[in-house]
């Protein structure tokens, strides 16, 4: 009996280590589900001037890149005073330890040279903690007066490598510049870099202009002009500053135009006999086609990126709401069902969201929703927010914010689609009705 029990125990004891080893076999596995959302710290030392003539540009270029990245809200620049080792040689290997010590997770280095009327810029981006380069180094060249565009292009490349999605820094915005008091406001079309630099005016302030819209390639602008006394759509060639009236027919009012993704068709609102409907027009031959026929007001149309659908606002249900319809026709489908009134919908260039203006309880909001109307989220709230426009990468929205009172002024603001990084866009005067153009070639 004793022997049997002892044998049994010994047998069990012999099995135990094997079972234990089996239980601990393989690597330890853990799951991380909580992280942090904060700007990624980066360092960008002043670029190295390889020729004396490039001395000033070397510093300015690195500043523009830093401003682009910081302005996106996704990155945070580490002040240069915190740098441990000076950056003196573009071709030397990087001492990652020094940059790790100041918690720089990305490092951007560059060198610039100027020869005659041409500047050449080389730059590299590094993942400091991985101790390796992010993509390949690039070299760009251009004229000295185009140095800001070169800097924006570099920032776009870095942004893309760090986030995995396209940038938007090398883009322009057309908007309505506003000067003067509210009861005598002068409006004219203006174009600027996305960050408010290089403002140029496209029209004078003799007549009211409204709602400019960039073409998909950024070479033309549609807008509504009151030059003839009533609203008419005009198209303006940005390069030559030549314009022509697109709508025809005396007495018909056309407004709220927007290009189709093909750049040849436009969709707009036209008022005939007191009723406003949507129309499409081929801008080459001027032939118009009616898209809606309802006693209600249909306006503010915007194409989906693939050009197959149009989102617009309509008061057919009593209050202004958002609807989606196929370009080929068919019954529009209502997508907004929240409280208040919805307007000025704009389809994201990525096709995933629709931005809109919402008025509810005496306040205006800029919001986004899925293209089926779900996941509505209000990003802003103020006395008057309206007219959203998407950045080329579909991550940032620019809009008009007007302050209250007789001295109230319209300004441009931008916000990330998550609702973070709400900030004003610097413009020399008042500004409204922004339209964000595509990335420049």
């Amino acid at each position: 009996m004793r022997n049997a029990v002892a044998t049994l125990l010994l047998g069990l004891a012999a099995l135990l280590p094997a079972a234990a080893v089996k239980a601990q076999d393989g690597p330890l596995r853990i799951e991380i589900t909580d992280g942090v959302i904060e700007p990624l710290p980066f360092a960008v030392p002043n670029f190295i001037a390889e020729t004396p003539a490039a001395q000033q540009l070397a510093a300015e270029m690195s500043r523009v890149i830093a401003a682009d990245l910081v302005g996106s809200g996704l990155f945070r620049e580490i002040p240069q005073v915190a740098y441990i080792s000076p950056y003196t040689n573009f071709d030397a290997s990087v001492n990652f330890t020094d940059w790790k010590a100041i918690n720089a997770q990305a490092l951007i280095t560059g060198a610039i040279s100027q020869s005659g009327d041409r500047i050449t810029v080389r730059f590299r981006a590094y993942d400091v903690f991985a101790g390796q380069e992010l993509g390949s180094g690039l070299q760009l060249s251009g004229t000295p007066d185009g140095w800001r565009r070169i800097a924006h292009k570099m920032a776009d490349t870095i942004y893309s490598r760090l986030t995995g999605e396209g940038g938007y820094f090398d883009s322009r915005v057309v908007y309505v510049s506003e000067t003067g008091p509210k009861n005598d406001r002068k409006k004219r079309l203006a174009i600027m870099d996305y960050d408010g630099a290089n403002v140029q005016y496209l029209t004078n302030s003799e007549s009211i202009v409204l709602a400019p819209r960039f073409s998909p390639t950024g070479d033309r602008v549609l807008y509504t002009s009151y030059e003839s006394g009533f609203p008419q759509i005009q198209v303006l060639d940005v390069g030559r500053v030549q314009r022509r009236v697109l709508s025809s027919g005396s007495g018909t009012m056309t407004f709220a135009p927007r290009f189709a993704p093909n750049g040849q068709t436009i969709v707009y609102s036209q008022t005939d006999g007191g009723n406003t409907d949507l129309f499409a027009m081929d801008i080459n031959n001027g032939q118009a086609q009616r898209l809606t026929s309802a006693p209600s007001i249909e306006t503010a149309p915007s194409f989906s990126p693939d050009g197959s659908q149009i989102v617009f606002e309509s008061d057919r249900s009593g209050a202004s709401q958002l609807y989606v319809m196929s370009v080929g026709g068919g019954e529009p489908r209502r997508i907004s069902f929240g409280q208040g009134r919805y307007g000025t919908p704009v389809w994201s260039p990525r096709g995933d969201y629709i931005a809109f203006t919402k008025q509810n309880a005496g306040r205006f909001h800029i919001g986004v929703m899925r293209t089926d109307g779900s996941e509505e989220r209000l990003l802003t709230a103020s006395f008057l927010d309206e007219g959203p426009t998407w950045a080329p990468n579909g991550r940032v929205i620019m809009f008009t914010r007007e302050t209250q009172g007789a001295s109230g002024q319209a300004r441009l603001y931008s916000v990330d689609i998550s609702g973070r990084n709400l900030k004003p866009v610097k413009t020399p005067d008042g500004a409204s009705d922004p339209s964000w153009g595509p990335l420049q070639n």
Partner: protein
Amino acid sequence: MQTGTKISAAGHGLLITWALVGGWFQAEPLPIESQDVSIISLEEYERLSEQRAAPVVTEVPAAPVEPPVTETAPTIPERPQPRPEPVPTPPEPVDVPVAEAEPEPPAPEPEPEIPTTVPEAPETPQVVSELPRTAEPETARPSDRVAPEPVEAPEPDTTIDDVVREEVAPDAGAEANLPVQEATAPEAASDRIVTEAEAQEKEPTAPLVASRPKTRPQRPVPQETEAPKPEVETAAATPEPAREPEPEPAPVEKPAPEAEPTPEVESSAVNDALAEALAGGGEVEAPEPSGPPMTSGEKDGLRVAVSKCWNVGSLSSEALQTTVVVAVSLSREGVPDAGSMRMMSSSGGSAESAKQAYEAARRAIIRCGSTGFDLPADKYAQWRDIEMTFNPEGMRIR
């Protein structure tokens, strides 16, 4: 005979304990994670690695890329000269509603009618142990940083650091013979993104979830009946321990110490004890001690440590939908070996988004492990190789 009985009892006891604790003495269920795995071939992985490692810093950058900057350089002409335009005709007032043309004044929208029927007056307030959920948690405030745990804004002069330290002024340091140091505190953080619209919402005083009205009016009687309840519970509870002392007198000495650890047995503690016991037996055979398994607390510590550095703020929307599994080997000091790090699998996104998600995960492991993760040295064999799954699903909705 008594000896045989004792041996038999001990053997049975061992068997019963074995069966209760988990059959084959598994410290914890083996991780059975069902996950879509996209297998990357060695060639593909090397190709991905080559792309990052390709450029050589010390050499002049590859072929100069001639961007179309100069060719397509700003086509914007100089400021257009004000052309002589016809005499401006003041715009006539238009009756047509032009939604885009003229923004409607922010006239207050017709408010929804206030219901004329007032809900019945609530009954006498009662103290409820569970407070209803309110709309805005106190921590929901705008902040640049979104972290799992909200952090109050530190004092203006405080240096931002993960480690909290109190300031030691030169004078105080001299008196107490302490090194002078600056005050440090973690950066302020919110536990979710708060948009301007949400921040401006009035903080609701009413709960989102209304407590159900009572079916019966409150009467004094229930109070009397409620009061005895605890007594009943305690009365029910007390007899049980009361029974224990009765059988105890006989085996007073030995059963008592055994019974002490068992009352609040945590699975990890049992596993630890078992693993410790088992480790002794395994030492003989295994060339390197595997050590006891990691407790859940130790795993949580590692998870929290990595979470602090897992920054998804700069990830693309697609990368935020991508889950990656990263394998890493640690040194005995708990420092990750960057060379050993590799992406085992990914799901929910494209190869490009997986690459971005993997890089963010890699940064998190390297950054927070640079000084070594705080892991038990005697269990090195348990945590030498780790597979970390980075799942950002919960971060998307913040």
